[in-house]
């Protein structure tokens, strides 16, 4: 509704115009009939008359609004303007479809339709507002009831009129009006039901629990009717005229709201059924544990309290009302429908099931981070883990085989301080106290066997790598058969077994990590050799005797590099470097000038390029530095060229001193 001033101005202007037109006609023709003819023939005069009609309609609308609604609230006005805009747009679209029938009468009919629509919306807002407004006067009731009666009556009359006109005169624009009014009729019915519900609710003292449900079902039914009406209308329109563009938007909105209502009904029904059947009644102990107040209504819970799967307790009736709106726990918003149905047995079983694959003796290096801290805390049932893990004789090779390829997550799982290989081997040895497990022995065996060659003769061990792993099964004594019947053992024994198992697993991981560290160090070292030798090749060509071995080492390093994953191994190499640090280099050796130097003997580019990842310069530096330290630390790796590391070191020191 336009603001008062423009309406007043418009009224004045239109009346003045009409008076002028009529006066003019009468002045010219002097008689009634000719002046009427004159007015109808002259376009400007007719425009003035139409304007007057429009003004009258607006005035009528304002009058009716005043009668039925009083003054509109701001929100109502806002909504009304917005929806009127859409309605006018759609009407214009409808005009395009029915442009053949375009006439003043047609426009007038659409205006009436718009008016009725607007009043339906307003009635809807009013009834919705009724739920929220504190005081409902008798006037309000009278207004709403009379308005609803009037609207329904008008709708009915217009529908029947449209129906008869369509039957008698064939399909015309009346079809559109018929459907529009039919839809408006459903709207009016919906409003009426809402109004009745609210009224009943207001009359009764206690809040009416089932009101929301009735409203929901009403909405559902009306939505269904509307969707059917729109579908039928669409089909008819397509068959008779063209595609009715102007009903697309309302149709879409209707379908969406219908779908939502349907969804609401289904979900809330399911939630309430769940509540009634699945969720346990809260016991008095539980009630006293949570200070006994339903947080929805803030009243004491004595009976009829339900406990949700998330452990929160509410009145069943409060929950029902809430579930009609939303199917989540009011406190933690857990979706109670998505939650798997709670059964104590399955909940108890779940953690061991998840932990079981990770539990076996040697966790493959990919998974251990979840295994270690969590799994062992929550294992009520050790049998599951043990039975899975124990008796596979092929275990060690299977588990160890992937280790050089994917060794990494171990690192992230537990950042351990650098420990020397000897200390870990002792720890692993110390843990092998129990008779039960094959795995620890195998771990110790692997640890011992790899530690020695790894630290003593890296080059040799590298060359032997491919056959090395297949050898494992032969090194390891076959695992003793697991105890067949755990029930024979006491709880303490089982727990002991499990505890030992844990220690063994840890020790094994430790050993594996050490092996990996050593291997990484060795690989870095090999890279170092390769680069140095090639640079020697290029720059000096002094040592002709070592012509052979650079190729060898380069080849070896190339074969060795792919399996390792350097991004993650850098941590490790740094660990190792920490452990070897005190041996050789003064702190200046770690100067950044080293990494940035362009002298041919620098190993950085080669290291970076040979390792298939993006080591940044610092990491590369530490890696190469480590390589140098390990060179000095271990025995000369390449038997054919024993002086090489010493010479390189000297060379590099010279270079550093030059640079700095």
């Amino acid at each position: 509704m336009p603001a008062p001033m423009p309406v007043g101005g418009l009224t004045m202007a239109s009346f003045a115009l009409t008076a002028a037109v009529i006066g003019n006609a009468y002045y010219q023709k002097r008689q009634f009939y000719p002046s009427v003819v004159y007015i109808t023939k002259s376009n400007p005069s007719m425009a003035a008359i139409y304007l007057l009609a429009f003004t009258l309609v607006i005035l009528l609308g304002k009058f009716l609004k005043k009668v039925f609604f009083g003054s509109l609230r701001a929100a109502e006005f806002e909504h009304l303007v917005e929806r009127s805009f859409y309605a006018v747009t759609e009407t214009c679209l409808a005009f395009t479809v029915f442009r053949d029938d375009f006439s003043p009468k047609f426009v007038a009919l659409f205006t009436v339709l718009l008016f009725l629509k607007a009043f339906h919306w307003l009635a809807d807002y009013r009834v919705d507002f009724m739920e929220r407004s504190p005081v409902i006067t008798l006037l309000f009731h009278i207004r709403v009831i009379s308005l609803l009666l009037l609207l329904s009556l008008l709708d009915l009359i217009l529908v029947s009129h449209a129906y008869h006109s369509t039957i008698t005169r064939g399909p015309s624009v009346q079809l559109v009006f018929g459907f529009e009014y039919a839809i408006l009729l459903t709207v009016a019915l919906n409003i009426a039901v809402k109004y009745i519900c609210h009224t009943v609710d207001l009359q009764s003292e206690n809040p009416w629990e089932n009101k929301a449900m009735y409203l929901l079902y009403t909405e559902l039914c009306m939505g269904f009717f509307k969707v059917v009406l729109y579908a039928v209308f669409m089909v008819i329109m397509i068959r008779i005229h063209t595609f009715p563009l102007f009903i697309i938007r309302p149709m879409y909105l209707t379908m969406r709201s219908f779908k939502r209502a349907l969804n609401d009904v289904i979900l809330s029904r399911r939630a309430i059924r769940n509540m009634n059947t699945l969720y346990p009644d809260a016991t008095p102990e539980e009630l006293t544990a949570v200070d006994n107040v339903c947080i929805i209504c803030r009243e004491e819970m004595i009976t009829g309290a339900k406990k949700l799967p998330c452990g929160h307790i509410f009145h069943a009736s409060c929950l029902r009302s809430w579930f009609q709106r939303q199917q989540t726990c009011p406190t933690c918003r857990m979706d109670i429908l998505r939650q798997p149905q709670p059964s104590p047995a399955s909940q108890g079983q779940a953690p061991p099931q998840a932990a079981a694959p990770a539990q076996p003796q040697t966790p493959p290096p990919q998974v251990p981070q979840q295994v270690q801290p969590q799994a062992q805390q929550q294992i009520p049932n050790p049998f599951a883990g043990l039975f899975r893990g124990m008796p596979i004789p092929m275990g060690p090779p299977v588990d160890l085989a992937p280790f050089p390829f994917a060794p990494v997550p171990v690192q992230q799982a537990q950042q351990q301080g650098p420990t020397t290989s000897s200390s870990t081997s002792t720890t692993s040895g110390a843990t092998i106290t129990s008779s039960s497990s094959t795995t620890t022995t195998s771990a110790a065996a692997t640890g011992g066997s790899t530690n020695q060659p790894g630290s003593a003769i890296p080059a040799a061990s590298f060359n032997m790598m491919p056959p090395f792993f297949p050898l494992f099964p032969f090194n390891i004594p076959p695992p003793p058969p697991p105890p067949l019947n755990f029930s024979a053992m006491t709880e303490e024994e089982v727990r002991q077994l499990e505890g030992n198992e844990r220690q063994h697993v840890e020790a094994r991981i430790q050993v594996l990590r050490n092996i990996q560290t050593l291997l990484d160090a060795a690989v870095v070292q090999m890279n170092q050799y390769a680069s140095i030798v090639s640079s020697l090749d290029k720059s000096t060509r002094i040592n002709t005797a070592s012509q052979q071995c650079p190729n060898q080492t380069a080849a070896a390093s190339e074969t060795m590099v792919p399996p390792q994953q350097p991004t993650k191994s850098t941590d490790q190499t740094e660990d190792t470097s920490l452990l070897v640090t005190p041996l050789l280099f003064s702190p200046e050796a770690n100067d950044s000038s080293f990494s940035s130097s362009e002298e041919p003997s620098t190993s950085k580019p080669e290291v970076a390029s040979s390792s298939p990842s993006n080591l940044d310069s610092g990491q590369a530096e530490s890696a190469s530095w480590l390589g140098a330290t390990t060179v000095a630390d271990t025995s000369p790796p390449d038997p054919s060229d024993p002086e090489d590391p010493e010479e390189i070191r000297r060379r590099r020191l010279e270079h550093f001193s030059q640079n700095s």
Partner: protein
Amino acid sequence: MGPEGTCFECGVFPAKLIFPPDYPLSPPKMQFTCEMFHPNIYSDGRVCISILHAPGDDPMGYETSAERWSPVQSVEKILLSVVSMLAEPNDESSANVDAAKMWRDDREQFNKIAERLVRKTLNLPYP
């Protein structure tokens, strides 16, 4: 009560809470009865914060249901939210576009207006 250390400090802003009949299930409405100039308060005083929005419909489309009304919210929580809203307006979802724009672009002017409002609520003359 305007939170300390903000431009609304020391102000006492009267507001009314309107509780619907199905109160714990539907959120109450809050409306300041004094003049307010704030990105999240409509010019008629209505407060626009997420916990006062009913969970079902999402008129603006950017609130997760986790931050909207739930029957376990209490009046204290609402008031606390409003006080923190006074301290830190959310100019992403503004109810008062002018205020949001000024909050973003011309903080000084905003502070001046806020100070005037504070003084007005305290019946102090504005310098």
